[in-house]
């Protein structure tokens, strides 16, 4: 996935890239994997500006899904720091740019949450529940949003 130009662009513009290899000398892998609670390779972590984990990718994923998950991590970082408009924009862009990815239904869910939290607009939750009736209806995220229908 790293040879993909889109991945290279996203990684180099948004992150400090850090690699830890199981064969790194002097017990480096053991220390860092314990520090970040990692038990398997490949594992990729998205850490926010304060060093807190916001997303975890375990096991191989195809390039498009990998890109979508990186964007999910970025959007979650924005949501957690209270940048709700930025978070909503990032979640909605993910849905548009990676509609077939496994991250898209989750992004649609959190886009609604971001709008709700940013504008104290309960209608955003109802709109999100409605959106799930026409897309990703079989996803677990549609089930989670279903309670918002009467919001």
């Amino acid at each position, binding site marked *: 996935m*790293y040879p993909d130009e889109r991945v290279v662009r996203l990684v180099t513009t948004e992150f400090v890239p*850090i690699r830890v290899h199981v064969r790194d000398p002097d017990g480096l892998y053991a220390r860092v994997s314990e520090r970040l609670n990692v038990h398997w390779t490949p594992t990729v*972590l998205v*850490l926010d500006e304060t060093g807190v984990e916001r997303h975890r990718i375990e096991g191989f994923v195809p390039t498009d899904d990998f890109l979508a998950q990186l964007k999910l991590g970025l959007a979650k970082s924005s949501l957690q720091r209270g940048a709700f408009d930025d978070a909503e924009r990032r979640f909605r862009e993910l849905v548009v740019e990676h509609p077939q990815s496994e991250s898209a239904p989750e992004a649609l869910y959190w886009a609604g949450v971001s709008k709700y939290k940013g504008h104290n607009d309960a209608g955003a939750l109802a709109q999100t529940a409605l959106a799930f009736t026409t897309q990703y209806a079989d996803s677990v995220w549609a089930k989670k949003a279903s309670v918002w229908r009467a919001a």
Partner: protein
Amino acid sequence: MAENGIVWRRDAEKALDDATQQGKRALVDFTAAPM
């Protein structure tokens, strides 16, 4: 170490501390792939 335009920090512990101190997001890749 550069790979297809990505310059990976290999001094992971210091890199994690640097990223936090500088207020930057980090992507940490744990791998066993041949290098």
